[in-house]
């Protein structure tokens, strides 16, 4: 009787318990991976702006709006004024444009929800990447096909370092016209990003 119980506990209960714990852990880890790293993050924006329409169908260059991306560390989100360059005439009667015009005339900034974010202690620099010919899509995915922008790539330090160590594998798209720039391994020292 005693032997049987011991056997049962050792041979059945314990492995099952360990299996269940491990399985729960593993499943949780993998299921929540994307969410933890923000992959798939697709917050609703105050104005339903479509990148697919503007960047995809109308083929407006990313830098028309994100004009500082090759000048500074930040790829700026355009001010309402930039939208109004066209929309003071174009599609004035559409509800989203009426919303936009309202923001603009009231002088209130539009609070766009952030989709991608690197932590404050990492000083990512857009311009050094873009000026080397690394296309936006390498990190941001094919935004030109997105109705609502979502995060498709990992924005962890591992993702950064993978590409810095092996740029050939990481960089799929080069900005047209910048193909002949040599892309070396990125810096891997701490002070490249942390200061």
């Amino acid at each position, binding site marked *: 009787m005693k032997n049987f119980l011991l056997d049962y506990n050792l041979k059945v209960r314990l492995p099952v318990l360990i299996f269940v714990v491990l399985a729960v852990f593993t499943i949780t880890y993998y299921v929540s991976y994307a969410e933890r790293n923000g992959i798939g993050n697709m917050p609703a924006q105050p104005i339903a702006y479509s990148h697919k329409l503007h960047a995809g169908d109308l083929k407006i260059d990313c830098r028309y709006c994100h004009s*500082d991306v090759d000048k500074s560390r930040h790829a700026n989100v355009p001010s309402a*004024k930039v939208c109004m360059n066209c929309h003071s005439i174009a599609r004035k009667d559409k509800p989203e444009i009426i919303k936009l015009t309202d923001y603009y005339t009231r002088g209130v900034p539009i609070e*766009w929800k952030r*989709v991608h*974010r690197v932590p404050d202690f990492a000083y990512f620099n857009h311009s050094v990447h873009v000026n080397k010919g690394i296309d936006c899509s390498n990190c941001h995915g094919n935004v030109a096909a997105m109705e609502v922008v979502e995060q498709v790539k990992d924005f962890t330090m591992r993702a950064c370092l993978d590409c810095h160590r092996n740029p050939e594998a990481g960089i799929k798209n080069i900005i047209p016209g910048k193909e002949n720039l040599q892309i070396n391994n990125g810096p891997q*020292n701490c002070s490249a990003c942390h200061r």
Partner: protein
Amino acid sequence: MPLRENQDKLIMDKKVVDISSKILNVTPEDPKVIPETEEKDPNYWRSFRELYNDPDFLKEKKNEFQPGSLDRPDENSFSKFSRRKFLALLSASAAVAATGCSNFRDKGEIVPYNKKPESVTIGLPTYYASTCTGCSYACGILIKTIEGRPIKVDGNPDHPVSKGKICAIAQASVMNLYDPERLKNPLERADRNNSKETAWADADEKIINQLKSISSSGKEIAIVTHTVNSPSLKKLLTEDFRTAYPGSKVYSYELYSESARNSAFEKCYGAKLFPVVQLDKANVILALESDFLGTEGNKVENSRMYSERRDIYNGSEFNRLYAVEGNASVTGMNADYRIILRTDAIEEFVLCLLNEFILKEKLSGFTADAAVSAKLQSYDLKGFISKNNLNEEAIKHLVSDLRKNTGSSFVSAGSMLPESTHIAVNLLNEVLGNTNLYVKDVQNIEQIPLSTKAELENLISGLKSGKTGAVIHLDSNPVYHFPSEYGYADALKNAGLVISLTESVNETSEAGNFILPVNSMFESWGDFQTRSNFASLQQPVIAPLYNTRQKEDILLTWIKGSKDSYNPDLYHQYISGNWKNTFLPGAASDMQFGKEWNAALNDGAVKVRQNTAAGITETTAFKQETFANTNFRLKAGSEYVLLLTRSFTLGDGRFANNGWLQELPKPLSRIVWDNYAAVSVQTAKALGLKSNDKISVTTPAGKTELPVFIQPGTAEGVIAAELGYGRSVCGTVGKDVGVNTNKLISGNPQVSMFMYNDVKIEKVPGFYELISTQEHYAFDEPLLKDIQFRREIIQEGTYLEFKETPDFLHHRHTKYSEEETEKLKVGSINEQYDHTGTKWGMAIDLNKCTGCNECAAACNVENNIPIVGKDQVKANREMQWIRIDRYYSGTPEVPKTSFQPMLCQHCDFAPCENVCPVAATTHSADGLNAMAYNRCVGTRYCSNNCPYKVRRFNYFNFRDRFRDSVQLEESFSLMANPEVTVRSRGVMEKCTFCIQRIMEERQNAIQENRYIIGSNVKTACQEACNTNAITFGDKNDKESELYKLVNSSIAYSVLEEIKVKPNISYLAKLRNVYETDKTSQEH
């Protein structure tokens, strides 16, 4: 000689002395040893405790962390939250978060401009040229703003006087802008204890009505201000305000003024103001109690001109600086020959020199009147030397140098010396032909002359008699600054209307009916002219943070006579209207003027085409009768001499609430957060004083108690104390810091405002702890012990030696055999780079470093360094990344001083990297030793293993801990440099070589598709250094300035022998003395 034996010999040579028990706080039974002070070993010492081998200090040296740093904090000062409660709350909040959360963590918002200004690029700084209003010299500044926030101030390279450099006060001035204790709204005070916020319109209306009635009743309206150096403000005050309110009168004063120098010059030459001197053309400079490199005159300009002649590469010979002084000043400590003389004997010394040159040597080019000769008859240099026991050799050199360099030397008399001394010095410069160096075509300019003593007395008697009906304090604080004998605070009570226009409350605003907050210098318009050849502009770089107004706008509103006439553009229009007629005349159209105006704003300064100022010319003659009629009555007394000196960091006290400045160590004593009475070793002995004892000082004006600091190199009988401390009405940072020594200033001084030769000194019971940073980070590693006396942290030589054998230093210092070197080598466990690309490095020229601390002030601002407070500095926890080590050699009575900026050396084989358990500090291929704050777990092993002791640990979140978390106020968060992490508790930090600026250059290089150019990167300390002592760049760039310096024959690195290969090279100090310094040769 084997190392061990050598050290034993040195230890055995020490002998017992008893003076130490007088100076140190130790019992006489303790065996005291003093290292031999004979000349063969300069044996650098930093404090008396080190010099006399105080056993406590020796014990402390053995420990990495000195007493106090590891003390448990007072638990009562912590939050009352228990750990259990905290955990409970933590889990509760986690549970709430878990149930309430959406799929993704919210990442916040991006809030772009609605209409982005054209000039702004997010993430890139914008620079604006402006003018500093911290003192009356009006230096040109360049304000760096990021997204509209001013975050850093540097010198404007296009400014003809400051030429890209500014002082520590201007460096730290951004903190004044963001000071959360600035006044935010106008206040009206019914009586002393009852003030309430009011609206601008109400205040304006009430004030205008009162001013009108006071003016029409024929009473005076006094406007009390500091130096007016703005032509537009001058016009506003003396023309427009006077037209609107006929009874108004302007009184301007300055706590430190050059009035003795100027009035003496006027008497001698007829020109009102002392001319500009070409110090860079002077081969020999004699400073008589004159701290022109520290606190006197335009320090920025003086330092630049002085150091241009201290450069081994610029082709000209070194200048030779003699200092004759009683107080230990920065200038004196940089002098090649420093002759210690009581300040009250200096006048006699000058007269003896005159006697020597005029009567004995009969220098040609100057014929003395009989009256002058008669006056000098009774003086004799030889007798003076023996009477005062001076260094005869040094004075012989001085006399012969002055004679040999007639026409290219300069004698500078200190501002604290009386007019008579200045007259004698003017004659000395005339005799020596040094008037050559006075600039003839450019004059100093005074817009409104400072009020004379009689005028100020008039003001006070007017107040007392009721003749003066209203007082307007224009950003001034006379209650604090005026001699207490004036009784200004009491006199103010008689005035019907007292208005203070001020940035924050002060002693004077307390006595007012209205306190009107004004814009800071970053929010204001202004124009300035201090020299006849140019004028400069000040422009606002940020909209007013609070409900404040520009002070000139307030006055203009009152001039217009209606509260509705205010608009924030009034003074801007007023200035540009003036400039149309004065500095930018003849524009054909408004558009043309607009272009010129914008160009002037862009440059910050414009040339003045019309030079109308009257100054000296080539033919201006010295009025010998002035000298003959002067009564030279200053004689060295037997009593004590008190010198009241300009505060090195706080100006006249108006920067007291700036913690960065309070915590900036004074150059010599390295004391922070206090002023003190500096006394000599001899005086201390005579009075039985130790450092930190208290004395009472009595002048004819009053009596004050001061803590004592024994300052090596002070003359016997001289006591020096800084002004500008002890503010009683101030923000939380500056309130009651130090002692108010203004109380000692007499309204009718016998000698001068800042010098009293009849003071009484008494030891009073009590103890006040002064905190100096100099003993910090002394260490005594067992590994290094054997070579401690041969460490050669400071290496020096003489200029003559260098001229003979440029590489004398390397002859002198090769002493390690291969075997020894191998034994001492410190390897690295980290991956080692070959450093073939860019390799960052720095060279610091100790010939140029004056020890002034500007670099530290700039570093604080650039790198978001917190204020820690006096108690934490005491526990060795100051956070400044760069410090200037000050070493004395020689005896305490006659020390030689060496300064050495010390910061992270970015060693190729950095010992700190080897011991970090979490690889938080690592190396990069371009030679940087980096800190990743997020990895740091705070073991402090790195600091322990650092041979240079340059790492700083955040024992607390200092921003939270200091003075009720004043640094966490919202306004201060705007001040932080966004390119640098704001560190929190528990992480190690240190100099990064301004990695953010390196990254900016990398960004530009990639943008322009070129290689990184090392010399494009300027570190904050380098930009700030007044004397260009610091050079940064790429060590592998053979074309660069840095390459030349690093490979200079006098370059060395500190602790070379431990083979950590530091990337900072020091250029050995060459003293320009005649004697070859045998001491340092015989190592």
